[in-house]
């Protein structure tokens, strides 16, 4: 007879080095994930930022039609596997409410990684957890379950989760505060001295990935523009604000971006909507934004796996040029 297990098996107790891919929602929850494992005494390896090589590896592992961000993710997982980590942390995130969900990509990630690597004949061990609040699995429960599997006690796990969540919150608040300060100081400047302010609205893993959005940010800064990010705002507030815009848009990240757009609209001179080709949520949200948010020029950029950066730079430069001419009162007065 099998022994009655009083405690769920600590099947991950031997995992000492945990890899976290620097892609997708790492740009949103990185602090939380990192400090959770560190609190539990694991060594955390976050791989290097994306480059052309990451994309090539990821592309080889993916079906052609997958989005750029997903290809990069698989590239990062492969990089971690090469670095000899014991396991890679790939959570499955559903969402926090009926209209606060993530793209189904995030829900599929652990199984996607396992199957894609199995098809390619490569080995990788995945640590997963599932956050599905409408389905009754809260983030805290998910991490508690993971802690037990890692061989920690309930008490230790709870402490680790709380500390990690606090670290993430502190980081998010810091970013939001900093941007708020920047907006405030900009609005205090006299209109003539104010630099051109551009709001970049993109998923965090697009906006802050140096290989994808970094090019755009650099090009904007090189033109002397002040760059604001729609994902660095007070999340709770902008999420609430987004319900003014739409009742039924189901993605939490897009909701936050839209809320930020509404909130920062009067403080900016132009908006850059950036997405990784082909992004499902953006395909609809961007259409709605262009239809409903008027009054500020919008540049829509789609970054895909094929093109180099030259095309993007040109478009950003001409966008900034047009805006600065407009600011001076039109081409004839420049």
């Amino acid at each position, binding site marked *: 007879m099998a022994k009655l297990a009083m405690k769920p098996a600590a099947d991950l107790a031997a995992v000492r080095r945990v890899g976290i891919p620097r892609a997708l929602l790492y740009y949103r929850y990185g602090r939380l994930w990192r400090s959770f494992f560190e609190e539990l005494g694991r060594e955390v390896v976050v791989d290097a930022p994306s480059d052309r090589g990451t994309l090539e590896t990821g592309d080889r592992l993916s079906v052609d039609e997958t989005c750029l961000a997903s290809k990069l993710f698989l590239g990062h997982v492969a990089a971690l596997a090469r670095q000899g980590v014991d396991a890679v942390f790939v959570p499955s995130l559903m969402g926090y409410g009926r209209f606060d969900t993530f*793209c*189904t990509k995030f*829900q599929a990630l652990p199984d996607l990684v396992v199957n894609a690597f199995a098809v390619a004949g490569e080995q990788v061990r995945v640590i997963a957890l599932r956050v599905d609040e409408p389905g009754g699995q809260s983030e805290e429960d998910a991490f508690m379950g993971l802690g037990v599997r890692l061989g920690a006690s309930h008490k230790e796990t709870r402490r680790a989760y709380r500390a990690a969540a606090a670290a993430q919150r502190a980081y998010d608040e810091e970013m939001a505060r900093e941007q708020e300060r920047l907006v405030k100081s900009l609005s205090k400047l006299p209109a003539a001295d104010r630099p051109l302010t551009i709001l970049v609205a993109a998923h965090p893993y697009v906006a802050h990935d140096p290989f994808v959005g970094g090019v755009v940010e650099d090009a904007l800064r090189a033109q002397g523009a002040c760059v604001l990010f729609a994902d660095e705002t007070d999340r709770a507030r902008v999420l609430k604000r987004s319900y003014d815009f739409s009742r039924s848009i*189901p993605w939490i990240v897009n909701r936050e971006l839209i809320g930020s757009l509404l909130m920062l609209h009067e403080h900016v001179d132009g908006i850059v909507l950036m997405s990784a080709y082909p992004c499902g949520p953006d*395909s609809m949200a961007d259409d*709605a934004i262009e239809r409903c948010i008027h009054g500020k020029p919008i540049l829509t950029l789609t970054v895909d796996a094929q093109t180099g950066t030259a095309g993007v730079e040109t478009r950003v430069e001409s966008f900034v040029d047009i805006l600065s001419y407009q600011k001076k009162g039109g081409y004839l007065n420049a």
Partner: protein
Amino acid sequence: MRNLSAGPEQGAGEPRAKKPAAEERGRIVLSEGAPRPLFFTGKRPKRDRHSRRKVAFFHFRNYEPAFKYFTERVLDADFVPTPAPTRATLKRGEEMSADYVCTPFKHIIGDYAAALDRGADVLVQVTGFCRLNYYGELQEMILRDAGYDNFQMLNFSYVPTGKLRDYVAYCKKVVNPNLSVPRGIGGMLGAYRMVEHIDAFRDQYLANAGFEAEKGSFTRVRRAFLSDMNAASTTAQVDEGYRRAADALAALAVEKPADPVRVGIVGEYYTAQDPVSCLNLEEKLMSMGVELSNAMSISAFNLHYNAAAAQASIAEYSSYDMGPTSTFNIAAAKRYAEAGYDGIIHIKSAGCTPEIDVMPVLQRLSRDYRVPVLFLTFDTQTSDAGLDTRLEAFYDMIAMRKVR
């Protein structure tokens, strides 16, 4: 009242002379038929609950009779049939939508525009999963921008609680304030039954229509069945129509080999079912002499689906539910593989994220069970000839494997 002044010729005490009946003063007639109702029966006459709103759905496979039944029996409103989609409808939809939104969105908005041109004033959009949740709101926005403003959207995404009571309240608000709930529930059951019958009929049809002895006989029965469903107004008629059609289908002569080539179809909810979206893929395969089975249908996915069991059945391939229809499709593909099907076709629309993520799983399943899987992506641009070539090549390949 007697007129005292009339009749001075009659003296007092004389017997009253009978006056000849100059005019008829009254008559008792026994009326025939049912008695005339009394004034106060305690029952009020039935009020007319029907709403004159003209409701239209999008085009989806051959579910139109069920949509009609739902509109007439549940919403109790007028039904406007959406015109059969044409190249022009699709082109219209394509122009109105963003480039890389999923293809069903383009089909549906094209249908809506056509339905509005026909005079519909309520458009129904469903809710569920993934981008579909946002279809209704964005489509309404686009249609209004395109100049249609005399319509309302019955968009079930606007009922976030998902409770029956709230759905009813919403339908009352948009379509029919006098909607009768008990009748509506009866109608709902009839609509469910009709959907089940339409799906059951399709399953039989797909299995045998490729081997018909008399060309066109299956299509004939199918047409008759759908027109019966279209005409049905009670659950009994729905059942009766199905029974008749099922008998007719079973009676048709087929020339089926003992071990035919069998192909299973899985894929994205809309495209895998809708012949317009997948360029009549089913008919094309059947004309080559294939026994088909299509896993996806409203009955299979919405009415009789046990998600937990399906997830458990594919534990070695997927540990979490990967997307709206992912678990369903992987489980169905595995079932086909285990049942010894000769090939599996996976259908999706361009850019369908959850189905793209299913593909590696099916690739692995294909390797494990040694069953060929054909992956097809349908966009508004997909060409007919290209599909023919791929299907013929796939058929040749699985037919040759079978002989070997």
